[in-house]
C-alpha cells in the first residue's frame, strides 16, 4: 500500500518535471537526463515508469485529455440546453488550458505527435464524437438549425476551436486563448444558430467573460 503510494508519487514527480521542461525549452530540446536532474531521481526510477521520452509524452497526453474531457463532460452533464453547454463547456476547457500546465503541455504534445501517434486519432476522434452527440441534441432542442448535419457542425466546432488555441499559442503563448475562442464563436454562431435564438446566444457568449472572472461563487 505504502509502496504503491510512493511509486505513484515518483511517477507524478517525473511527469511534473517533464511538463515544466517541455514548457520551458520544448519537447525536442529536452533530454531524459534533464528530466532526471529536475526530478532529482535516478535513471532507474525513470525507466521503471517510462521506457522512453515518447512513452512519457504519451502519458502526459493521456492525462491531459482525460482531464479536459472530464471538465467538458461535467458541464454537459447539466440539464441546461445543449448549445449553452457546448459553448460554456468549450470556454471551461480553454480556461483550463491557460491555467493547468499538464493540460497545456499535453495539448501541445498531441499536436506535435499528431501524425504518428495513436493517441492523437483517439483524442480528436473522441472530441468529435462527443460534440456530434451534443450537436444533435441542440438541433432537437431547436437552437441549432434543423437542416444541419450534426457531424459536420461538430467537426467545424472542434476544428475551429483547436485552431483558435493554436493561434493563441503561436502568437501570445496562449495568453489570449479565451478572447480568441470568443471571437471564433462570434463568427460561427450566425452560421449554425436558429434565427430566433441568435440574439440570446450572442448575449450568452458575451457573458462568458464574467463567468470566468476570478470571483469565487462562495466565500
Amino acid at each position, binding site marked *: 500500500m505504502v509502496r504503491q503510494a510512493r511509486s505513484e508519487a515518483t511517477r507524478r514527480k517525473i511527469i511534473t518535471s517533464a511538463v515544466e521542461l517541455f514548457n520551458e525549452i520544448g519537447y525536442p530540446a529536452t533530454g531524459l537526463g534533464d528530466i532526471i536532474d529536475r526530478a532529482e531521481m535516478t535513471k532507474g526510477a525513470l525507466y521503471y515508469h517510462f521506457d522512453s521520452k515518447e512513452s512519457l509524452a504519451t502519458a502526459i497526453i493521456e492525462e491531459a485529455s482525460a482531464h479536459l474531457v472530464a471538465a467538458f463532460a*461535467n*458541464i454537459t452533464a*447539466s*440539464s*441546461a*440546453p445543449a448549445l*449553452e453547454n457546448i459553448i*460554456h463547456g468549450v470556454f*471551461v476547457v480553454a480556461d483550463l488550458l491557460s491555467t493547468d500546465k499538464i493540460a497545456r503541455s499535453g495539448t501541445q504534445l498531441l499536436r506535435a505527435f499528431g501524425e504518428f501517434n495513436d493517441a492523437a486519432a483517439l483524442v480528436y476522434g473522441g472530441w468529435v464524437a462527443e460534440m456530434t452527440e451534443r450537436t444533435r441534441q441542440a438541433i432537437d432542442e431547436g437552437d441549432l438549425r434543423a437542416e444541419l448535419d450534426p457531424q459536420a457542425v461538430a467537426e467545424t466546432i472542434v476544428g475551429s476551436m483547436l485552431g483558435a488555441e493554436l493561434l493563441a499559442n503561436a502568437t501570445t503563448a496562449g495568453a489570449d486563448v479565451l478572447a480568441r475562442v470568443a471571437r471564433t464563436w462570434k463568427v460561427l454562431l450566425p452560421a449554425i444558430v436558429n434565427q430566433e435564438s441568435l440574439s*440570446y446566444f450572442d*448575449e*450568452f457568449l458575451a*457573458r462568458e467573460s*464574467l*463567468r*470566468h*472572472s476570478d*470571483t*469565487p*461563487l*462562495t*466565500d
Partner: protein
Amino acid sequence: MTEQLDRRADTTRLQILRAASHQFARKSYSLVNLDDILADAEVTKGAMYFHFRSKYALASAIIEHRGTVARASVDQLLAQKLSGLETLIDISYLVAVDDIGDETARAGLNLLESIGRTDGLQEHIHGQWVTAFAAIARKGIKDGDVIGDRDPQGIARLLVSMYLGLRQTSNLAEPERFLHDLEDLWVLMLRGFVNPDRIDYLEKFIKRRTMVALKRATPL
C-alpha cells in the same frame, strides 16, 4: 461481522426513510401513521424504534437527509461555473423540479413547514440557505448583473421567501402551472435588483430554464 451488521442497519434505516418520505410527501405530518410507514418499509416496529425513537425523530431525519442531498446538488451547480445570477436561477429550478417529482425533496420541505417551528429547525435551515445564496448574490453584484447598492443578504432572503410562498400559492401537483408561476415571480423580482440592461437577457434565460424544467419534471 460488525461491518456487515452496520451495512444491514444502514439499509434498514434508508428503507424506513424512503417509506416515511413516501407518506410525508403526500400527507400532512399529523395525518401520517407510523403503522403505514412500517407496512410500507416492511420492517418490524422494533427495527423502527431502534433507528428512530419517535415520529418527530423520523421527520427531522428526513429534513436532514434532504438537506445533505440538496447541498450536494447545489455544489454541483456551483461547479458549472456560470455567473452568480444564472446560478441562483438554476438553483431555484433545480429545487422546483425536485420538489415536484422527488418524494424526499417534497417530504423534506413539507416537514420543514409543519415541524420546523420547534427547536429552531426552520430558522437554522433557512439561515443556511440565506447565507449560501447571499454569497452567490454578492458574485452577481461583481458580475454587474445585480445593482451595486442592493443588499445580498436581502436578495437571498427574498429568494427563500419567494420559493416557500410559491409552495403555498401554486400547486406542485401541476408542474406546468408551478413552473410558470416560478417564472413569473422571477421576472417580477428581476426589476427589484437587476441592472436594467441585463434584464432582457436574464428573462430569456429564465424562460429557457422553464422549458427545460417542464421536460424534466414528473409529478409524484
